[in-house]
């Protein structure tokens, strides 16, 4: 019965406009693609991981240690590889950290899954086993490994930021930047309308200024804008400014398309010209009469009108990026004014759309003038000024700093941390192996492989640090086994916090050493890596269609 299809095996009779690969072959291909992607980034894992230099086709250079950034710049062709790239990006947007680990785990799970399938275990069994293992693992992290931040205090936050930064370019200035990350993020705390605290990472303004060393980076509350005042005739600083954020041009008014100006007397020409200038001049007057002393415009202001502002003692900043304009508006309590029209059909400026701050000033940073708004009324903003030797370094510093901000935010919002340095992975490995033995079905094998797959993280960490991974990991596993077999209140249970110390090449209590990661990031990482691995393992057929022919343009006759 089952033989009815055997005669016309595979491609022989199926005419499709492309090629087709099935069964074990496609699985091998997919796993190979995933492994080669993981291979690219695995040496950048951990505090002693190394960076990659990526050069694109126009010669732009990026130097990075961040998994998501590296993968984004790689041109991955293979569809299974693309899934892993997406995985890293998703981890980046949802968590902001752990992008390298998620790819390494997914690839390792794939490799081990494929081995199982080669040994005649049905893919469906492997998949069920992985799912079960992932569920147990997440439960274990939440119940056993997670520590509440409330108990640990601000130091825990700094430690979390430290842990993230330690693997990046900023690693050598760990504490300095970690504290900066925690402070700058705490400053932008807001409550949503349900009263839940939010820490918008975006509200931390990161500025990159070339020159000086990383050590000279600084942080202040207030909002800095990488633009100078429009005219040097304006004051350098202004106390208690009344701020208007506008989103329209103050230039000579042009009539719309379709409006023709026809005059029959040269005198009228002058009148029209004057009127063109006056319409905007009136707008300036409206602004000034409403008491506005600082104007931030997303567009341009003509010199003529700049002069009017300057004479009135007001300051203006033009061509403010729209994102910045929105944040300034939000912070100072102003609103982004797109037009001056009011409900009577005339033009005026509503008092409610004017914001206030304590000080607006122009300061000089390196070679550039920067406008800083301090003491904004509604919401405090933080500005971090990063200094570095060159653009590549600055870019990478920004990414690292951003990652640590994300990590701190996760901890602040979810309130739980786990020890880092491979300790969670090792604990899970020990736990899942013993969990697997409680099952009598074939899934047992998949769970054991899942458990061993997680060990790839501590293994890779120690390999990157050029330490004896076998010795370290066996010792670590012994500690964790001891911790899990001990009673909850016996002193041995504290061994569960032990992880790697990559600089010394030994193991230590990572909670005490302050190597902490957000618990939520670990859980999310496991979940997404498992999902992605399952996604790829389920595929047993790949059809690649030929690229579509460009339809001939019927109009392009010669």
């Amino acid at each position, binding site marked *: 019965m089952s033989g009815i*299809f055997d005669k016309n095996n595979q491609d022989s009779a199926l005419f499709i406009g492309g090629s087709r690969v099935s069964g074990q072959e496609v699985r091998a291909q997919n796993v190979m693609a995933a492994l080669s992607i993981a291979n690219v980034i695995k040496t950048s894992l951990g505090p002693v991981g190394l960076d990659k230099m990526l050069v694109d086709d126009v010669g732009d250079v990026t130097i990075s240690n961040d998994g998501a950034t590296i993968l984004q710049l790689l041109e991955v062709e293979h569809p299974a590889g693309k899934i892993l790239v997406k995985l890293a990006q*998703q981890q980046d947007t949802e968590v902001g950290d752990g992008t390298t680990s998620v790819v390494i785990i997914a690839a390792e799970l794939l490799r081990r899954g494929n081995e199982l399938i080669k040994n005649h275990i049905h893919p469906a069994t492997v998949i069920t086993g992985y799912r079960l293992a992932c569920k147990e693992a997440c439960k274990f992290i939440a119940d056993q490994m997670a520590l509440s931040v409330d108990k640990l205090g601000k130091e825990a936050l700094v430690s979390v930021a430290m842990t993230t930064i330690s693997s990046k370019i900023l690693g050598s200035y760990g504490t300095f930047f970690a504290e900066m990350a925690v402070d700058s993020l705490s400053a932008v705390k807001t409550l949503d309308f349900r009263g839940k605290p939010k820490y918008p990472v975006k509200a931390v303004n990161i500025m990159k200024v070339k020159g000086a060393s990383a050590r000279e980076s600084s942080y202040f509350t207030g909002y800095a804008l990488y633009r100078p005042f429009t005219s040097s005739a304006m004051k350098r600083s202004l106390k208690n400014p009344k701020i208007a954020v506008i989103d329209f041009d103050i230039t000579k*008014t042009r009539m719309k398309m379709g*409006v023709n100006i*026809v005059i029959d007397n040269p005198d*009228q020409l002058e009148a029209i010209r004057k009127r063109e200038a006056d319409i905007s001049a009136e707008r300036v007057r409206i602004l000034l009469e409403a008491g506005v002393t600082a104007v931030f415009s997303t567009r341009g202001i003509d010199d003529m009108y700049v002069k009017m502002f300057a004479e009135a003692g007001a300051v203006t900043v033009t061509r403010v990026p729209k994102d910045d304009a929105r944040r300034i508006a939000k912070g100072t309590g102003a609103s982004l004014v797109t037009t001056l029209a009011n409900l009577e*059909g005339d033009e005026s400026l509503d008092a409610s759309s004017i914001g206030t701050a304590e000080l607006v000033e122009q300061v000089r940073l390196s070679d550039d003038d920067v406008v800083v708004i301090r003491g904004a009324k509604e919401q405090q903003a933080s500005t971090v000024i990063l200094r570095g030797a060159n653009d590549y370094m600055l870019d990478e510093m920004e990414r690292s700093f951003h990652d640590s901000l994300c990590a701190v935010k996760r901890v602040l919002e979810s309130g739980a941390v786990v020890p880092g340095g491979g300790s969670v992975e090792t604990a899970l490995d020990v736990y899942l192996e013993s969990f697997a033995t409680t099952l009598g079905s074939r899934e047992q094998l998949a769970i054991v492989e899942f458990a061993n797959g997680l060990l790839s993280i501590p293994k890779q960490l120690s390999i990157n640090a050029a330490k004896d991974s076998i010795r370290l990991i066996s010792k670590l596993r012994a500690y964790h086994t001891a911790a899990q077999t001990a009673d909850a209140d016996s002193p041995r249970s504290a061994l569960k916090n032990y992880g790697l110390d990559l600089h010394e090449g030994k193991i230590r209590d990572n909670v005490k050493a302050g190597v902490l990661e957000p618990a939520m990031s670990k859980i999310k990482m496991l979940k997404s890596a498992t999902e992605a691995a399952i996604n790829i393992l389920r595929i047993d057929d790949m059809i690649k269609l030929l690229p579509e022919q460009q339809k001939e343009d019927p109009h392009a006759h010669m």
Partner: protein
Amino acid sequence: MSAAVATGASKMTGPSAPKKQNDTFNQMDKPTQVRLSNITAAKAVADAIRTSLGPRGMDKMIETGKKEVVISNDGATILKHMSVLHPAARMLVDLSAAQDVEAGDGTTSVVVLAGSLLSAAEKLLKKGIHPTQIAEGFQYAAIEAVKILEEISTPINLEDREFLLKSATTSLSSKVVSQYSSVLAPIVVDSVLRIVNPSVDTNADISDIRIVKKVGGTIDDTELVPGLVLNQNVITSAGGPTRIEKAKIGIIQFQLSPPKPDMDNQIVVNDYRQMDRILKEERNYLLNLVKKIKKAGCTVLLIQKSILRDAVNSLSLHFLSKLKIMAIKEIERDEIEFICKATGCKPIADIDSFTEDKLGYADLVEEVESNGSRIVQISGIKNAGKTASIIMRGANQYVLDEAERSIHDALCVIRCLVKKRALVVGGGAPEIEISQRLSQLAKTQTGFQSICFQAFSEAVEVIPTTLAENSGLSPISIVTELRNRHANGEKTAGINVRKGTISDMLKENVIQPLLVSTSAIELSTETVRMLLKIDDILASR
């Protein structure tokens, strides 16, 4: 395309076909060659998607000509994306699409079944039975099979939620989202029940169920939303509100931007005062529109997408935000009907007809952010029509797309139950039952009919066979044991994929709508009959 077909066909006629042009017309065995080539091509299609049948079926990854990647387990989707060239093979692709329209589920089974029927027909052809006789015999067999199915089915009541949940779960179990079936099945059942009146309706319009997909989060976060969800975001560039309680919702199909005169229309200005008038006129025009909208009491404005003119401009948005009206633009034309039905408002094509009775009322319209994406939720709708909205979440676009297809299949399953309120069990049980009864019937008949019945009965066994194969079980021992159980009167015995044994499917809660099985049998038989009747392929321009 026609060229490709021609080369395909000529290749199919194979080495035995002579190359000389005129000879082809004199060749007596050409019809048989064509038939066999068609059968081979069609069987190849069935073979290609065979491994994705059942709860342990695998997925296919397809890279389309545009370099997009599709990963799917759904027969209809796979075949749609595979660019099959042979015309006979294309008929199987269409067959799968037809099953998708008719029943929505069982798109893989229908093709596998057709493939198996074709290979049965091939054997009969070789015995020298005339193709029309085979076609006829299969038709009778199919009619009998449907009768048998109806006989062994159990009627259900739509009030019985348990049964609906079980059938939705069965449909979801073969998909990538299977482990979430406990989350998705209730969503599917509730959303269908929301749009039908169980005592009156005999069909359900699935387009009344709206699925909004957002990347981020996991499938666990998928939910059935009370009220309506919009994919579009609230326009906040002018600082308008994003949350409105006790909202009155209006849908407009006109634009809030300065009117555009016809092409060659020029406005001639010859005095500077007129320049002011033009500017002021524009303001007044928009202000009037917005004021009228406000006067009708509207607080949430949905604006249809427009091509020729901007739907809104910064000036009108400014007015709207001043009057505390929430504005959402880019509503697609085909969404309007659904939104109107869901919110109880009527589309307004002209400002003069903007009156209060055309507005819909909702307790809360709010833009919410979750898992990194923003959606507009409208809840507490008064006079809501029979619609349902589902927000789907998933880790990436592939998962999301596949989850949507799975949900669609499950929705169709429930719709089938609304159409034809009867269930059969799954796990290959009905197919074995059909096979056994048909083979008994074959013994009561004589002539080609008897042979065709026998062949049909054997062909149907492909479903349990494939199920067993895909689950990593031994098909021979499983199918023979199944036969044995059914011969002993256990009509609901089927393959328990999870345990790898035979058990009572009713107890395992593996059930599917009758309509899926009957339409699979009917549609596949019809396609096979059509293929059998073809005796020549000609390339035409």
